[in-house]
């Protein structure tokens, strides 16, 4: 009894890894770096994380968690409230609907998918900011931010893949693959 309780706690803790890891990535993007113009092109690490977990372990990062992550990012970065939840939920929604396509595909295809989805997400991010600030923002930095984010996908996803070994394999993925009666 005692042991199963511990096991259950352990499983809960490990299933929280995708959420907590994404929050850590949000915090990391806030750390000031002594790199020229870094604050302007700071990579959207949370987007990488959301995309990664939705494709590899969709059950462990529910939309509500994605919403909360986006809210944290808005609150800390000073962006208008609600922008990042929309952007991250967009990434979540598109990646979730296409996850069967990405299933067991090569890394390059997954990366290509990230490029496309994050491009749309960056556009939406720009449009929402422009709308809420009441001005068309011309921002070449946004293009660089997009490129930096795409370029950082391989190393960040490598780290996340290492972490994925800790995360419990949810039963629902097994169930979903069993053909119905």
């Amino acid at each position, binding site marked *: 009894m005692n042991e199963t309780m511990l096991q259950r706690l352990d499983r809960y803790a490990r299933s929280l890894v995708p959420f907590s890891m994404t929050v850590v990535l949000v915090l990391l993007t806030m750390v000031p770096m002594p790199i*020229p113009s870094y604050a302007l092109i700071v990579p959207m690490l949370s987007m990488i994380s959301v995309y990664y977990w939705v494709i590899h372990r969709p059950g462990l990062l529910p939309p509500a968690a994605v919403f909360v992550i986006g809210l944290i990012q808005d609150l800390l970065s000073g962006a208008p409230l609600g922008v990042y939840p929309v952007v991250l939920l967009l990434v979540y929604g598109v990646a979730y609907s296409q996850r069967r396509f990405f299933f067991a595909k090569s890394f390059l295809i997954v990366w290509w998918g990230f490029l496309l989805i994050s491009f749309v997400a960056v556009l939406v991010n720009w449009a929402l900011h422009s709308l809420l600030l009441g001005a068309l923002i011309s921002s070449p930095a946004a293009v660089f*931010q997009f490129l930096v984010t795409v370029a950082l996908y391989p190393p960040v996803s490598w780290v996340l893949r290492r972490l994925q070994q800790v995360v419990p394999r949810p039963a629902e993925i097994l169930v979903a693959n069993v053909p119905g009666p």
Partner: protein
Amino acid sequence: MNYDKEGLIRRLAVPLKGLVQRFTFLSLVLAAFGLMLLGKADTLMEQRLRTVAADVIAPVLGVLSQPVDFIDGVLGQLRELAALRSENERLRQEVERLSAWHSVARQLEAENNSLHELLNLNPTPRHGFISARVIADGGGPFVRSVLLNVGTGDGVAKGQPAVNGDGLVGRVTESGRRSARLLLVTDLNSRIPVVIESTRLHAILAGDNSNQPQLVFLPDEGKVPVGARVVTSGFGNALPPGLPIGVIVSVRGRTARLRTFVKWNRLEYVRLIDFSGKDEPSDAGGAERAAP
């Protein structure tokens, strides 16, 4: 029979689950849009939310930014070590040059004081300073603001300007108990009354999220000189006059661009200027300007 029932439940449950998931997803997206509207309509609530979040996270961010500062410091020291000789020579020359300026400044200060006395001018009040460390700077391309590790507990209040050794950095827009948000002068929402030092032309410094903010509302008369220094004018009494901001690098029509003195990628510490008794000088300033 039993198998049938189970099959039925499964056949119903799967699409139902999908529906529920889709419903939650859509309602979350709607909630996010609702937040945007709410943030626009009720800025006070938004600010309160932000300050609470920043207060909670500030200690974590303070710790996270420590190693970066440390490594940067070590690298900086190594670089300085390499350039020690030439730096020493340069500083020696600068001291010579500045000591001449120092005596000039002393003379001018004495002269200025005696003239002030003659005119019976209101003295500019002395200000206090609050030193703060920048702990978060991740706004991305659309927002230029940073978080500081000081708050109302340290005497920080909304509206206080922040300077570093180079010049004006920005103004406090929100202040929590132990954290504060600083809107940089380069942000799209930043508007600062300034004056061109050599020609005394007044203008507004407007950020546009790039590293080089714009001067707008320049008056028609007078030429805008490239290379001239721009400082705060102190109009509206939101900022003390004379804080250096930058030099003009390009002029196009009635707008000009500034290269700021502050280096935006090296923003580690700032000093917040604490004006206490802010209302009284405001009246005095008005009277001063109205007087012939």
